[in-house]
């Protein structure tokens, strides 16, 4: 199928893209890797009158480390992130997460900015962004601002980014000694989207869990943290019993989805299973 006609612009800078968004308002949509938007245009689920293709904006593509942070340009593809040495050594869980999204061709085109702005309930990255406490940096007509991960995902396919804004980058922590993170996913075997995906971050102080963050995607309409499970683990030694107790506390506050791939009850059960797996691996890495 062929998309409905649209006007096409390919700005070279973020400022140009913002100007075009201002000029065309609600009629316009940004195009990045196109791996959510183009399928929707082909099926005519979306028919924007104007497409602003930001895939040629060079400043959106950079991946840099700044002190104890990694700054990933919104236009970096999954393949560029997964194979980047600074990402692999400083934030392996991010490389691993994007390295198993979809298939090679999806990873060659899909971008971190597109995934987070689209906020598909089954997308992988929101879980990792929540668990690592990443920051989403956006630019709009009123300048730049940052959105904390916890404020980013508002509802199904709805984020805290305003219509006139462009996501420019995402800031992740570089994990140090005593810190560990992991992502565990139940994949839908055909599309490889997450039926349930759980990302866990832990920080050890001596033999005690000093901090824990858990992000869940796929299970419900919107990706969420798991405060009860996090609280259950903090202050413990992180042994098997503590992990089991924390996993058992996971699953609250999720508006569960049920579909042909998995019922709501199954997703609820799997949140606990995958929380245990993600925590176990995150703790193993924190101790290594």
């Amino acid at each position, binding site marked *: *199928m*062929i*998309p*409905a*006609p*649209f*006007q*096409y612009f*390919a700005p070279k800078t973020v400022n140009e893209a913002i100007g075009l968004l201002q000029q065309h308002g609600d009629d316009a949509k940004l*195009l990045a890797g*196109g*791996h959510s938007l*183009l*399928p929707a*245009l*082909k*099926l005519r689920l979306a028919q924007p009158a104007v*497409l602003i*293709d930001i*895939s040629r904006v060079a400043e959106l593509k950079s991946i840099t480390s700044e002190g104890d942070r990694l700054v990933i340009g919104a236009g970096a593809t999954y*393949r560029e992130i997964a194979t980047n040495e600074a990402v692999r050594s400083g934030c392996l869980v991010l490389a691993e997460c994007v390295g198993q999204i*979809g*298939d*090679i*061709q*999806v990873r*060659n*085109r899909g971008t971190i900015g597109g995934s987070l702005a689209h906020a598909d309930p089954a997308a992988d990255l929101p879980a990792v962004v929540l668990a690592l406490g990443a920051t989403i940096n956006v630019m709009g007509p009123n300048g730049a601002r940052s959105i904390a991960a916890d404020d980013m995902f508002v509802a199904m396919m709805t984020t805290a980014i305003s219509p006139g804004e462009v996501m420019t980058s995402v800031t992740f922590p570089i994990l140090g000694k005593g810190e560990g993170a992991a992502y565990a996913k139940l994949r839908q075997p*055909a*599309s*490889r989207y997450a039926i349930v995906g759980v990302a866990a971050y832990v920080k050890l102080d001596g033999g005690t869990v000093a901090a824990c963050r858990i992000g869940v995607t796929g299970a419900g309409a919107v990706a969420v943290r798991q405060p009860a499970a996090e609280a259950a683990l903090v202050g413990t030694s992180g042994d098997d019993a503590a992990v089991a107790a924390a996993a058992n506390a996971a699953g609250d506050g999720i508006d569960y989805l049920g579909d042909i791939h998995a019922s709501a009850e199954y997703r609820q059960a799997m949140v606990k299973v995958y929380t245990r797996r993600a925590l176990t691996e995150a703790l193993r890495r924190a101790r290594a």
Partner: protein
Amino acid sequence: MATITVTVNGKSYTSEVEPRTLLVHYLREHLNLTGTHIGCDTSQCGACVVLVDGVSVKSCTMLAVQADGANVLTIEGLAQNGQLHPLQEGFWECHGLQCGYCTPGMIMAAYDLLQQNPEPTDEEVRHGLEGNLCRCTGYHNIVRAVQYAAAKMRSEEVPA
């Protein structure tokens, strides 16, 4: 309309296209390169895979205007001087196809896979071709065909 210049299989083309033209339709209908197939409407089958600036993409999920200035390689560009590419030879020798509908996409995806990983395990080949569906072969001979090509491209003896 937009004017684009694209190099396809080493030859430069300048064309007028509607912005909504998908790369796959540009290749098939403007350039008459019908070796690249369309197997779905949902970006899932991989029949349309070509290389754009060296990496494999689903040409049904990219606009022709997005390929302006790019270097595209399609199945038609693989054979050199009448000599099949090792991947084409592998699919031939190992019966890696039945109806052949998925084959151009399989080969172009395998091309990208082998440039990332010249010595894959069978498991890695299967994993690397996740984006390509085949409704005939059961995949087994496709994996053999890719291993045949991998060995040949490493200048080793091809597996039996």
